[in-house]
């Protein structure tokens, strides 16, 4: 939404291997960026003429700028966890050129004023920030917000994320109105009536640890209801946030087969970890939805491989140390994720599970762009926004949370050895990060 100032210069990204799934390109290509747009994509050494700047991408993958559909940047109201400036800086390190911020701030972003506040240059965003607005006033689940006004103000979707839209009638209304405006309604699928006092996935591990567990059914029942609604309501657009269970996946598959407009995202932690991985009540393994069972993870991996998953989104949820270093049941839900997303995808999905790199790039680019209709993004065809991510798929590195650009360090991946690293992030033709 906030377009970083357009750069009246040119940048040639030279010698790289372009993967642009939307354009069905997977070949060595040079890319010329000019005045904030993609000016030319051509085989190596075919782009002639003077340029202001060159980026040597030999041995590297050049991809459309990554899009994260799900981040919490905590502003306004909780700047001690993260700000738009620090959050977007972490995004740039992770190769994300666009991020979609969730509205569960203090106050909740449920008005045009809130969206305008997010767009102000004073926020210091270094990548493009798209606002997802609240679906109900104050995200209290009772009265819909003014979708039309929010849409015109630049919101790209609505959600009560952090909480579900539980009431059948309100969800129906949201999908009807959203459908009229071609506005995706994003659901945090959790039947909170079934998850009171729960802090992890319900299974053998939660029983052993004496922690009350969230059942898979608490997610699946809401997803099933929503998919049913999306199948009934003409033009409704439903997007399921951070889907984590095999049962919910079944509902989504059914909806997609019925040609309902249902999309969904999965997070890197849900395709990497299970409920068995948490040790010693480490609250860096506490998030919502929780880490699920091994069979849920297998189902998600299959859906990532077979093309069913639309997007990888981080659900980047920063919290201060004092909000995490406490009794597991009382600790805040959520982990950071922007700086490890690509590396986890390459390490887990590409290297271990042999999912092609082009598919992974799609999950970070064309896929998310389609979910929220981000025109001009998610591809590098001529005329697109000059957002580019350059990465080294073979580079081994160790993630050090202490060095993270995020204000918060709540991640289970501290010290992990990973493969795949972002080398440069270009937003609107300008290099905002280079390794």
């Amino acid at each position, binding site marked *: 939404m906030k377009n970083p100032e357009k750069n009246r210069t040119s940048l040639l990204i030279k010698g790289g291997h372009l993967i642009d799934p939307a354009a069905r390109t997977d070949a060595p290509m040079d890319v010329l960026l000019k005045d904030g747009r993609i000016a030319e994509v051509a085989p190596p050494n075919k782009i002639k003429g003077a340029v202001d700047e060159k980026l040597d991408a030999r041995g590297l993958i050049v991809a459309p700028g990554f899009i994260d559909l799900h981040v919490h940047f905590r502003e306004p109201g909780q700047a001690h966890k993260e700000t738009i400036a620090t959050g977007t800086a972490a995004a740039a390190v992770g190769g994300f050129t666009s991020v979609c911020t969730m509205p569960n701030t203090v106050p909740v972003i449920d008005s045009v004023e809130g969206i305008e506040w997010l767009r102000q240059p004073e926020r210091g965003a270094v990548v493009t920030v798209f606002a997802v607005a609240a679906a109900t006033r104050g995200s209290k689940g009772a009265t819909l917000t003014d979708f039309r006004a929010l849409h015109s103000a630049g919101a790209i979707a609505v959600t009560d994320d952090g909480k579900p839209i539980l009431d059948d009638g309100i969800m129906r209304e949201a999908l009807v109105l959203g459908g009229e405006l071609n506005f995706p309604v994003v659901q945090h699928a959790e039947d909170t009536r079934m998850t009171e006092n729960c802090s992890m996935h319900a299974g053998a591990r939660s029983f052993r640890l004496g*922690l009350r567990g969230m059942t898979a059914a608490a997610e699946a029942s809401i997803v099933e209801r929503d998919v049913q609604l999306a199948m009934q309501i003409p033009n409704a657009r439903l997007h399921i946030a951070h889907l984590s269970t095999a049962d919910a996946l079944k509902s989504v598959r059914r909806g997609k087969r019925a040609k309902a407009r249902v999309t969904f995202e999965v997070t890197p932690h849900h395709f990497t970890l299970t409920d068995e991985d948490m040790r*010693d009540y480490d609250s860096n393994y506490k998030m919502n939805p929780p880490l699920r069972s091994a069979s849920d993870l297998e189902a998600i991996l299959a859906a990532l491989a077979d093309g069913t998953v639309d997007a990888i989104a981080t659900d980047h949820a920063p919290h201060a140390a004092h909000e995490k270093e406490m009794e597991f*049941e009382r600790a805040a839900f959520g982990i950071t994720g922007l700086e490890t997303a690509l590396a986890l995808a390459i390490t887990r999905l590409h290297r271990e599970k042999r999912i092609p790199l082009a598919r992974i790039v799609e999950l970070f680019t064309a896929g998310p762009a389609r979910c929220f209709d981000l025109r001009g993004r998610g591809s590098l065809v001529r005329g697109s926004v000059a957002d580019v991510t350059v990465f080294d798929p073979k580079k081994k590195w160790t993630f050090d949370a202490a060095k993270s650009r995020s204000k918060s360090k709540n991640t289970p991946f501290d010290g992990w050895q990973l493969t795949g690293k972002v080398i440069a992030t270009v937003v609107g033709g300008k290099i905002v990060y280079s390794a």
Partner: protein
Amino acid sequence: MNPARGSLLGIEHMEAAEILRLLKFARRMNPDKTRPLLKGKRVLLLFYEASTRTRSSFEIAAKSLGAHTVLIQSFGSSIEKGESLLDTGYTVRAVGADIIVIRHPNAGAPYVMAQHLDVPVINAGDGLHEHPSQALLDAYTVLRNKKTFKGLQVAIVGDIFHSRVARSACHLFSKFGVKIILCGPPELVPDVAATLASGVRVTRHIEDALRGTDVVMLLRVQQERLSGMKIDLAEYIARYQMNPLRLKMAKKDAIVMHPGPIIRGLELTSEIADGAQTRILEEVRNGVPTRMAILARAMGKMR
């Protein structure tokens, strides 16, 4: 994670040999004969939850070893004012605690303490998770009555889901090859309970649990932790209450145990509570030498 040496956070990760060593040492502990193994040491009892048995038992155990004890309860302390668990931990450490004994309503709270403090942390019960000192004193009681764990069968009847005592007991007995049968309705004894340790199985039928059993361990239905669960108490009593007729189904020399507090007329009848096979008060008595051993071990004095 590296808890200070001598910490006792749970039974699950304790080795069988270590458990036996501790139980053997406990036999040498006599609360009536002061042994100044912990002379001049400060034992901080940090109780975030109500307790009669465990608290007094740890206090007497510490004093019998010559230690000073300080009791901090959430009511009437800074905890009430919103001080975090860790800040309370740092504070009592700064005051000079040598050992911290903690009882807390949240599972894992002692782990948080142990992760950040350099003194031994003793778990005196954490949420639904573990109650290691209770399991140890129960094992001590079983050994006094049955001589050996070999070939034993233990039935645990009642609210397993909400019971840290049951979890710790399962881990402990399992390490010695004891057959463990968990018995109760699915709401209180979910099938997943059988995954707790090897040798554990679940049954819904009291006859099935009692047949051939050497030790009958009864648990209270923890109404304060039910969290919206609907349990028909009359139905529970009809199906699972321990009464003399039912106890006859167990082995002739079976003993009846209960971590307390007992509710007469609910999980057991008065005839059982006061009966000859019952060891409930013996368990309480055995708590003191067992906890003396736990505290001595915490200070590296288990020799």
